[in-house]
């Protein structure tokens, strides 16, 4: 892994936390040196963030699915949060942080057929991303890393509410998203994320 100085890490984590704070949530800057197990969970979440960012970009780029202006703005806001999460966590991984070139992103045929199909798939994908983030937050040992992941989970909850409402459901879904263990998370990501 590339060496990241503490000063650089502080600056990057601060910038990432600032971006999240601007979006209305608090974030604990990741200052400590998390261990290999913690970084593995961070890598899993960062990779998931690349998937989410690419999904929302695909949604906005598809005229048949983009929907009215207010829907597009909502999707842009969610994508902005996903980008902020990545910016918050990726510096912990240094030069080996996952980037788009590492992956092939695959979305189901028909997911971008209409605004409704896009919203439905986005909600399913957000449940997966939430399960992954909850599982990661529960597994990490380092307190600062756990704080950062918990901030991410809070935002994922906002996404679930917004997308549920967009699909005609309640903005406050009643189900409790369960954390995914790392094997389930990998298996459930596999259809959408490959190399």
């Amino acid at each position, binding site marked *: 892994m590339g060496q990241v100085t503490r000063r650089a890490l502080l600056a990057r984590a601060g910038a990432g936390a600032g971006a999240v704070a601007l979006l209305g949530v608090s974030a604990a800057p990741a200052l400590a040196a998390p261990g290999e197990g913690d970084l*593995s969970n961070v890598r*899993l979440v960062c990779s*998931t963030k690349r998937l989410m960012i690419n999904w929302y970009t695909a949604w906005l780029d598809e005229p048949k699915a983009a929907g009215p202006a207010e829907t597009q703005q909502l999707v842009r806001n969610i994508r902005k949060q996903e980008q902020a999460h990545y910016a918050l966590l990726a510096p912990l991984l240094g030069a080996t942080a*996952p980037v788009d070139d590492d992956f092939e992103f695959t979305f189901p045929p028909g997911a971008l057929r209409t605004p409704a199909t896009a919203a439905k798939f986005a909600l399913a994908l957000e449940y997966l991303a939430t399960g992954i983030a909850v599982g990661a937050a529960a597994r990490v040992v380092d307190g600062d890393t756990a704080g950062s992941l918990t901030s991410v989970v809070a935002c994922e909850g906002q996404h679930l509410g917004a997308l549920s409402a967009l699909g005609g459901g309640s903005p406050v879904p009643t189900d409790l998203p369960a954390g995914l263990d790392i094997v389930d998370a990998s298996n459930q990501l596999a259809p959408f*994320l490959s190399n």
Partner: protein
Amino acid sequence: MNRLTTMRRSLAALLLALALLTALTTTATAKGTRAAAQMNVFAAASLTEAFPKFDGGQKYNFAGSDALAAQIRLGAPADIFAAASPDSPQALYKAGLVEQPVTFATNKLVLAVPTANPANITSIYDLERPGVKLDIGTPTVPIGAYTRQVLGYLGITNAVMPQVVSQEKDVKAIAAKVALGTADAGFMYVTDARAVSTQVKLIPVPAWAQPPVRYQIAIVTNTANHADAAAFIKRLTSTAGRKLLVDNGFGVPKLPKPKKAKKK
């Protein structure tokens, strides 16, 4: 007399025509069908199946990329160097021993277990179980370096490294040992697993834990066959070359996206 003269003239004309034809043929052979010199291609062991299919006319030296780089440093007569990671080609480039390397292929790591799977391994995390016999590459060979990256990315280095019973100098040795059942499991490239596909079962490495495996190729600076070496690399990176690599299980680097026309 006249008849004899005519015959002599005809014979002379025929000989002249033959001489001209021979001269023309010789010139055409020299210019148009010059046989390319057979080159010494030093290539990563994982290219053992693919490269001879791509060009069967070269002399290949397949081994671990680090060993090949060491041979080139010692002056081994190589024309082309193809490695399973950018590390060795970039180091040789910095030393002035090869020209600018180019990425021509990608690959993925898998965990392979013998078909009988005596250790009952169904997930990479099963490698943490005490008693599992794992075979990996040495730290300096690309497959060994990539494997250590995977274990780190998965957060299981400390639990899994004590299970390593053997470290190999190239990926073919790992594939052979797993196929024979000498080891319970081994990390290899997906392309090498294809070569022993009837003797092993594969367990995928999650996409998020895959290191970027990039193959690089370069012309050796002191080659006497520069034009042929450049042509080899040009063909390898052409559409046909990329297709052959994909047909043999490799990935290929993404081509740059065409720029969108700006709206006026």
